[in-house]
């Protein structure tokens, strides 16, 4: 085993601190008995109680979850198909079409989707937001799935076909289980992207449709209350739970490396 350099450890520690200290502070202050996010006064669960009485915040959180789930399920199915198509048929135009939404600035995508929805006379609301989220999530899922496919041993598919499996059976029993970690990682990615998207949601949401990021953002002007900390803490818990469940379902799910195979 190689000796770990103390420098490397220090850098890693600093990087983790940089990533996690702000999150820890958010969580800690959600239990603080003061409206200010400034100093520790005392422990309280008041903000959680207030949060659960705040209809606007709860509706927003409900909308966010609904949109996030819909967007991740639909874009995972479509994105997996797109990823397979990109891998199987080396078309030049297809990757361009699927991956452009990742590269275009969000604001451009938001405005063009809004103009598009207005043109088609679609009433702006949950449906338009969900459609927009699906549109930008597909590319991310496709990329992850294609990367997973690229690392897959093609001879396994050939072997399945040799043994008489139909194309569907080959997909269902060989390809899909092998790329499953990629598919689930893509779905998780789509969910997190959807649940915290602000720019595209802002443009495609209609009168009366509020998601959590929109709600929180509109509160910034008037000093964020610890209710926002409380709702963020709950969201973090939910995300953590998702990751734990996903890694339980398939232990090497969150590992993208192929070298573990003997």
């Amino acid at each position: 085993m190689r000796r770990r350099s103390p420098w490397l450890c220090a850098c890693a520690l600093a990087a983790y601190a940089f990533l996690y200290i702000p999150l820890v502070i958010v969580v800690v202050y959600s239990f603080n008995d003061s409206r200010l996010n400034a100093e520790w006064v005392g422990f309280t669960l008041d903000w959680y109680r207030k949060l659960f009485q705040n209809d606007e915040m709860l509706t927003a959180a409900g909308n966010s979850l609904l949109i996030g789930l819909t967007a991740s399920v639909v874009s995972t199915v479509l994105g997996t198909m797109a990823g397979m198509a990109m891998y199987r048929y080396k078309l030049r135009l297809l990757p361009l079409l699927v991956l452009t939404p990742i590269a275009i600035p969000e604001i451009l995508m938001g405005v063009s989707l809004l103009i598009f929805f207005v043109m088609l006379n679609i009433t702006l609301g949950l449906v338009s937001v969900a459609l927009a989220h699906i549109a930008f999530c597909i590319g991310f899922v496709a990329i992850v799935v294609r990367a997973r496919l690229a690392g897959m041993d093609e001879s396994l598919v050939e072997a399945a076909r040799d043994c008489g499996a139909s194309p569907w059976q080959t997909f269902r029993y060989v390809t899909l289980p092998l790329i499953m970690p990629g598919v689930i990682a893509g779905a998780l990615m789509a969910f997190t992207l959807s649940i915290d998207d602000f720019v595209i949601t802002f443009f495609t949401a209609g009168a009366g449709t509020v998601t959590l990021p929109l709600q929180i953002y509109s509160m910034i002007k008037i000093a964020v209350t610890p209710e926002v900390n409380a709702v963020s803490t709950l969201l973090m818990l939910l995300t953590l739970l998702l990751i734990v469940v996903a890694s339980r379902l398939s232990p090497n799910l969150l590992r993208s490396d192929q070298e573990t195979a003997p």
Partner: protein
Amino acid sequence: MKNPLAIAAAAALLAAPAHAADKLHLYNWNNYIAPETVKRFEALCKCEVVQTYYSDNEELLAKLAAGAKGYDVLVPTANVVQPLIKGGQLKPLDKAQLPNLKNVDPAYMNTPFDPGNQYSAPYAMSTTILGYNDEKMKELGLPTDTWAVIFDPKYLEKVKGRVTVLDSSSELFAAALKYLGYSANDTDPKHWDEAAALIKKAKPYWAAFNASSYIKELTVGNIWLVHGYSNDIFQANLDAQAAGRKFHILQGVPKEGAVLAVDNMVIHKAAPRPDLALKFINFMLDGKNSAELTNLIGSGNPNLDAQQYIKPELLKYPAIFPPKALQAKLEQLQDLTPAQRRLRNKLWTEIKASK
């Protein structure tokens, strides 16, 4: 115990379909209407108020320009009402339906942004003034009624690193121009150069350009003097009192004058319910309803009839009902032409880059 609840629930279920169609869509700033006001309006018009929020006038403009609809009433700031009118986004107000319009102080009516108030009715306002920690400013013997205190090194030396100014070129230039004795809307490039020089000279003494966290900094006591919005300074004091601080955060109105921003109620051209929109506007022009917002967030109030309903302790804030002498010195900011905007941006970049 259970029965009345069950009956109420059943009644609510039965009543819901009848009310479902009657919705007023209000596109508003967050926390910019008192919850009890909303409840009373809902009871009065037997409708539901659905609010959606924006946090910046430009957001509102962009969204409407792209064709978003479904909103009845919007609450943009005066200088945004003008482009909305020009863009044909608004429906003229039927003043026969707005008897309460007479409650508005004439000083805030008939502005160049909407001559004759054909499209807009004043809702609430804020001024850009000084906010200060009373204990510290007294201790240091600094004046709080002049822009000099944030621009003149003579004063700044004593509060170095304890001052923040707004991170907004239009607001800071307006303050500097006012201090120099010009109009906040002055567009003479020479005067702008003078203002830029003044700002550059004062910059080393400021802790930061800050537009969002100065409320907290004031409350905690890290910052003693700010150039900020009257509503925010009011909030800072409430927070400071709630946190049991010994000092107060007070509003100082510079004698040179200041910037005024009036938010107006307007009706979108594609409003699904213009009838409810008019009812709502008239309702909000009622002194009692207008006063509830001021009592909640300390916003400036253009409604003369509201004065009698304001909590007495709020009357000490000059920004809420600016007296006549002060009104004359308040100016609303006008939009810049593209050429002026370029020059302003260039000066602003130089200021930000200067040491």
